[in-house]
């Protein structure tokens, strides 16, 4: 298992490097000269030149990349051009809410998806199976913003049941919980379909295997077979899927945060891009990419825990 983990970590190093390089390139191709911006509108050409020199902007690109790497590793991502606060501080405040939102979405969507998938597999070919599968295709095809808009319109506005703007505070307060419900339903909603589909496929495969036939021959009840024998064995592909879909979830989070004014990284990134705040958008994209890599590693570790075959080999 240790070998598996170290191998994964080693593979992600070049990827991380690539992401940093892209982040660096983002800053290279933007149309503004950072020295000019930093010097302000009244600076003389000599001042700007001095700043260029001190920022290392006159060095070859490779050296600049080195300087950039050094800065990023120290947590220095530059300053936002609009708020003039350090990018790293702005980001630090948004990572938490994004993780919160993603967790709150997965926590109900995955069990529900597994439940629907199991129902569909057990009643394979029957009407309930067909309905669940049709609903899952429809769910995958639905623009996430439409689902969110409907929730805002009905639950939030017409029936006045739940708030739909922003985050009210930590999740252990009642208002905090109330504010996260609608965004979490929106983001989790698009996730049920894929999970249900995968569970169904995987469970059907396991239900056809020899050990299930043996269990049936022994006279084990169908309920116990499905819940105790088959479902557990069919969950590994579901974990794979969840891992693969984390990126998809991240994309959904960007849209959901924008819609519900949820103060997360995605909303920050979109706002920064729209207002051409290059340092901030570069930082936000970097954080999104790095956390995505981190999540992938975690999912990999989770496999090793779930699948004993991986642990020993």
């Amino acid at each position: 298992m240790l070998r598996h983990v170290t191998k994964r970590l080693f593979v992600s190093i070049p990827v991380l490097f690539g992401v940093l390089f892209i982040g660096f390139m983002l800053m290279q191709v933007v149309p503004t000269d950072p020295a000019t911006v930093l010097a302000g509108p009244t600076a003389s050409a000599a001042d700007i030149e001095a700043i260029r020199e001190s920022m290392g902007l006159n060095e070859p690109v490779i050296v600049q990349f080195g300087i950039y790497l050094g800065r990023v590793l120290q947590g220095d991502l530059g300053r936002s051009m609009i708020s003039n606060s350090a990018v790293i501080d702005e980001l630090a405040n948004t990572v938490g809410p994004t993780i919160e939102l993603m967790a709150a979405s997965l926590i109900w969507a995955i069990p529900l998806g597994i439940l629907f998938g199991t129902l569909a597999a057990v009643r394979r070919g029957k009407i309930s199976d067909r309905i669940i599968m049709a609903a899952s295709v429809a769910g995958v095809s639905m623009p996430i913003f439409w689902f969110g808009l409907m929730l805002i319109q009905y639950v939030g506005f017409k029936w006045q049941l739940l708030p739909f703007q922003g985050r009210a505070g930590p999740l252990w307060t009642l208002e905090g919980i109330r504010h996260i419900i609608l965004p979490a339903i929106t983001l989790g909603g698009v996730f049920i379909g894929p999970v249900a589909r995968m569970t169904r496929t995987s469970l059907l495969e396991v239900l056809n295997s020899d050990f299930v036939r043996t269990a049936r021959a022994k006279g084990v009840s169908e309920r116990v077979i499905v819940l105790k024998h088959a479902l557990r064995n069919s969950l590994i592909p579901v974990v794979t899927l969840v891992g693969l879909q984390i990126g998809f979830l991240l994309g959904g989070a960007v849209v959901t945060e924008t819609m519900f004014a949820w103060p997360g990284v995605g909303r920050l990134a979109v706002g920064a891009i729209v207002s051409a705040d290059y340092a901030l958008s570069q930082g936000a994209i970097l954080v999104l990419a790095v956390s995505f890599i981190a999540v992938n590693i975690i999912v990999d570790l989770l496999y090793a825990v779930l699948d004993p075959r991986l642990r020993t080999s």
Partner: protein
Amino acid sequence: MNATHISISGPADELTASGMSPRRSTLQKLRRDKGAVISATLLAIIILAALLAPVLSPHDPYDNNLRNMLKPPVWAPGAVSDHLLGTDGLGRDILSRLLYGTRTTLTMGMIAVLAGGIIGAFLGLLAAYYKWLEGPIMRIVDILLSFPSILFGLAIAAVLGSGIFSITIALTVSAVPTIARITRGAAIVQMQMEYITASRAIGMSDARIIWFHLLPNSASTIFVYLTLQLGQTILLGAALSFIGLGAQPPTAELGTMASEGRNFLFFAPHVSTIPSLAILVIVLCFNVLGDALRDVLDPRLRQ
């Protein structure tokens, strides 16, 4: 989800006992699938309507009239017969904007999938044919595949600025890895066939083998995934437009229209509901059709 269905299909799978040509048998099987027939018909109508937008539109989609704004669609009280689907916040005719918007959205998606498909198929074929290229190409493809497409959208919009052009590039990039992987999978099956060895033996050039053997025999698989990819791409493009990074107002584009309607959600929900529903229908049709095509062309999943 891409890694979960590995497709293996080729000419050998398609030879049916009745001796029908592979293409005809595919069409016949498709015709038995009701969902596929309905989706294909709907898509044909939608594409036709989008193509004929200038002819079909009752109004100019950019013609605003503030005295006539936020009129409800014809089935709701207070509607004006002149605007079948009502008007938006600037008094523009929603039906006309829907037609033009579908045109923009479909064009964006199709260009991206076509461009991404060509690049992806090219990379996939190279990876399947030249063993020494397989490692580097597939490693890059895996990395691209592992990144959420929305990040490409954000990164490209950050550099090039928001707009249809940046988003189309982002959508193209996001289509490349899926198609590359699928093409390689299909082409590798072909590489093990004896006719490839035979072609080499008679001295065919690499380029000819790739172009005349590998590509045509992998084409059906590539086509299925292009269809499925189109749905995903359109959905992603609409989402990027919705958050303000894609088509910019006043351009008629479905995602942008849905986003503009957000301001009137509470008293004129149809302004954003109608374009959103249009996206849902289009993507659903591509997904159902793609699934059906896969079932027909991929016998491993057919049961």
